[in-house]
Every structure is written in structure tokens, then in C-alpha cells.
């Protein structure tokens, strides 16, 4: 009789697990939303959020402030949506799959990280639609240059922010009841200091340094450079987006490592895998 060791399946590659988990995530998304509930519920809500900040500009009676707030919030709205990664990673634990994930031969991190990619398509779309639809309602035109820069910035900001959210999600996995609080506090802190409301330079120096840990700080700075027609705007955008992506990759790696540490702790019994 063959030794049980020989029957043990080869460890599936992390890429394959990730791809399968992405499909599970897509399934989640289809259950959560229909096209109608997404567009008339979620998208409309996001457009109103951007309009809320544009209206502050009306109160201030300043065209410049209105545009600043509209662009900042429009790009940020998708980034904030990406922070749902923190909740959806905790959902994976809530569905009771943890005992299977930690006993399976493959790695656990791609299962968590993959399922949470479900927010990316929606988040990119909300940011982009917000950038293209709301400013014209306040009387600001969109140029072809601005359109291209907005599309690039929306995609990169959301993808990089997904990387940023992953380590937080891994930490929150240990206390899933804090998922909503953690996600909301993160996006509010980020929204405050990343340059969406006031330029980063408005804040005291330590806060300015702190703002650099957020990927959106860099992509937003780049987008503003193009939209405000600064000399060398496209260079600034390229640099901002590259920095955001690099930072997002680092955060993603930290997140994968932390998720694997979580699974390891579950294997050693320090996490209650049944809850």
C-alpha cells in the first residue's frame, strides 16, 4: 500500500488559488448588487457624496475651491469604496471556511486577498464616473487630456489602495466585529489628510509625512497636476502613479505576509477557527 505521503496532493500554486478566489468574489458581487441596485443605489450615492463637497465650494463662493473639492472627492470616492476589502476579508471568516483554508495544502492568503478583489471594478467605475459627470454639473468642462488622466488615475488609485487595505484587513481578521469601524475610520483618516479636502501642505509637518503612507496621496497629486495644467503635469502624473503602485505593491506584500501569519496562528490554535 502506498504511503499516505505519496497520496498527498501537490500544493496548488498561489496564483491558481487567487484566480479561483477572484471568481468567488465576483459571485459575491453579483449577489450583493444587481445592475439596477448598483446604479440607482450605490453609484447615485457616490455622485451625491461628490456633489456634497462641491456644494461646500458654493458656500465658500470660490470656483477654485469648488473644483479642488470636486476632483479630490471624486477620485477619493472609489478609494474609499476599496476599503470594503477590510469587511469582505472578514466575511470570508464569517462564512466558516477558515478550518478548511488552514488545513488545505495551499496558502491561505490568496483565498482572502482574491475574494476581496470584488470591489475593484465597481470602485474604478464610481471614481471615473464621478470625475467625468459631477464637475460638468458645476460648470467645469472635461478636456480629452483630463479624461485620459482621470481614467489612469482612477484605475491606479483603486488598485494601489487595494494593496494598502490588505494588511489592515489581515489585522481586522483577528477581531472581525471591528470590521466596519476599522474600514470607516481608515477611509475617513485617509480622506482627511490625503489632499482631497485641503492641500497636504495645510497640515503640520508630522501629518504631512503620515499622509505619504497612503497611495492615493500620490496619485491625486499627479492627477491635479494635469487637470490644473501645471507645466510638466504629465510627468508629475506618471511619477505619482508609479509611486502609488510601488507603495501599493509593498502594502500588498505586507498584507499577504500578515494573512499567512493569521492562518499560521489558526493552525496553532491561537485563533478560534469556528467563529
Amino acid at each position: 500500500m502506498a504511503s499516505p505521503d505519496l497520496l498527498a496532493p501537490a500544493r496548488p500554486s498561489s496564483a491558481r488559488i487567487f484566480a479561483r478566489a477572484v471568481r468567488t468574489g465576483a459571485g459575491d458581487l453579483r449577489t450583493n448588487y444587481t445592475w439596477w441596485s448598483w446604479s440607482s443605489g450605490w453609484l447615485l450615492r457616490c455622485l451625491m457624496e461628490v456633489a456634497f463637497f462641491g456644494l461646500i465650494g458654493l458656500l465658500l463662493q470660490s470656483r477654485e475651491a469648488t473644483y479642488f473639492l470636486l476632483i479630490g472627492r471624486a477620485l477619493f470616492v472609489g478609494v474609499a469604496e476599496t476599503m470594503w476589502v477590510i469587511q469582505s476579508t472578514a466575511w470570508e471568516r464569517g462564512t466558516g471556511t477558515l478550518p478548511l483554508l488552514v488545513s488545505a495544502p495551499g496558502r491561505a492568503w490568496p483565498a482572502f486577498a482574491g475574494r476581496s478583489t470584488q470591489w475593484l471594478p465597481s470602485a474604478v467605475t464610481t471614481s471615473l464616473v464621478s470625475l467625468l459627470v459631477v464637475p460638468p454639473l458645476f460648470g467645469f468642462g472635461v478636456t480629452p487630456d483630463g479624461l485620459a488622466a482621470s481614467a489612469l488615475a482612477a484605475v491606479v488609485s483603486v488598485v494601489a489602495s487595494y494593496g494598502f487595505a490588505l494588511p489592515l484587513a489581515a489585522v481586522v481578521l483577528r477581531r472581525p466585529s471591528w470590521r466596519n469601524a476599522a474600514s470607516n475610520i481608515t477611509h475617513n483618516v485617509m480622506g482627511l489628510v490625503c489632499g482631497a479636502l485641503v492641500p497636504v501642505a495645510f497640515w503640520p509637518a508630522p501629518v504631512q509625512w503620515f499622509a505619504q503612507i497612503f497611495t492615493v496621496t500620490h496619485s491625486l497629486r499627479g492627477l491635479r497636476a494635469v487637470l490644473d495644467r501645471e507645466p510638466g503635469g504629465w510627468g508629475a502624473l506618471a511619477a505619482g502613479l508609479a509611486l502609488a503602485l510601488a507603495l501599493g505593491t509593498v502594502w500588498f506584500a505586507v498584507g499577504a505576509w500578515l494573512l499567512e501569519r493569521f492562518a499560521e496562528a489558526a493552525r496553532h490554535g491561537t485563533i478560534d477557527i469556528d467563529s
Partner: protein
Amino acid sequence: MRRVGAVPVIAAAALLEARMLRRSPAELFAVWLVPLQTLGYLAIFRFSGRDDLDAYAVLAPAIIALWALALLRSGEVIANERDNQSLEAIAAAPARLELVMIGRVAVITLASWVALPLSALTGWLFFGVVPVVADPTVFGLTYVAMSLATVATALLFAVFFVNSRSPRIFQNSLSYPFYVLGGVLVPIALYPQWVQVLSRGVYLSWSADLLRASTTGTGLQGWPWRLAVILGLAAVTFIVAHALLGLTMRNARREGKLGLT
């Protein structure tokens, strides 16, 4: 079967909610966001050199917390009872679901009052905004009226939550549209005319205007009838919610699929 009195049911539901809140303070996270919002609005106004708008920045997060918590909680209550499989039991019990909702949402609304001192403290600590209310009587009355209307509105939303398969989408969608319509930060007088008409149907717009007026001491003309409008909207909302919830529960009992929807 003897019908249970309203007061013991409301009291029991309120006690339950208070105990649950004490056990899981994370539920109150909307209140913890208040300092961040206050800082954000104050930063925008100060950056534009408008320190005359301090009161606006301090009041808005408190109103937002009141709305967000009541809304979130009224959805969660239904979802929790459904997950618990106690929604059917409540439907079968002689006490009405709406009394349970009123008790639980009232406690949440009271808890959200802490957002106001928190916002004032944030403004004072970080931007030196001195918290002074020009007319405390009107301010206090408005706050109470706004809270009553919030409980009535949460009850109305519960009707949709009972009927909805995914109440969370509905919940998520009701935040900013109402912050805009309710003029919580920017007075609706600055909006286009057609939006103002819509806004006048939302109790938040009357409440926010009156809170700002009683804080700054300007624009208080006709405050008694403006207060009456808030209470009137609360009453209408309550009557509609009462009728719809009764209808929903009757249908649910007849079809026997309350836990499934």
C-alpha cells in the same frame, strides 16, 4: 390573548439595545468618525479663510451621526432578528415589531447625542472654536424634535428593510443623498430652486437651518412654526411607517416567508 402594553415593550427593547451597545461599542463607530469630519470641514473653511463658518462645521458631523446611526441600526435590527430567526417569533408575538424598533432606535439616537459635545470639543481643541450657543432653548428644542423625527424615519426605513433581500445596499445609499437634501452642512437656500423644493420635504433641512440659526443667533424668525414643521414631518412619517409596517407584517404572516425574503 392579552395584548401587551406599549411601554413595557419599548422599555424592554431599549434595555436590550443598551446592553448590546455596552457589549459591542464598535456599533457606535459613526460617533467616532465625528472628530475626523469636524476636522475636515474646519480645515476646508479655514483654508479658504472663512472662520465665520465654524458653527456649520461643528454642527454638521453631529447631525450626520444622528442620521447615520439611526439608519444603520434600524437595518441591522431587522437583519439581526432575521439571522437570529427571532423575526418570525416577533411577528407571532402579541407585541408589535414597531414597538421593538422604537425602543431600540430611541436608545441609539440618544447615544448619538454624544456626537455634539465630541464635535464641539474637537473644534475647540484643534482650531480654537469656542462652543457658544446664542439661543440654548431653541437649540435644545430643535435637537429633541430632530431626534423624534429621526426615530420615526428609522421606523419607516425598517419597512423597506423587512421587505429587502439586501438591506445593506439600501442603507449605504441613504447617506449622502440625504446629507445633500438635508442641507446638513450647506444651507439649502444656496441650492437651485427645484432642489430646495425637494429639500423642504426632508426634516433634516429644517433641523439643520434652525440649529445653525440658534447657534449663531441670526435668522431665528418664526422659529416656533419651523419647529412645528419638524414635528409635523415626524408625525406624518410615523403614521405612514405605522400603516406600512402593519401591512407588511400582515402580509408576512399570511405568506409565512418572513425569514426568507
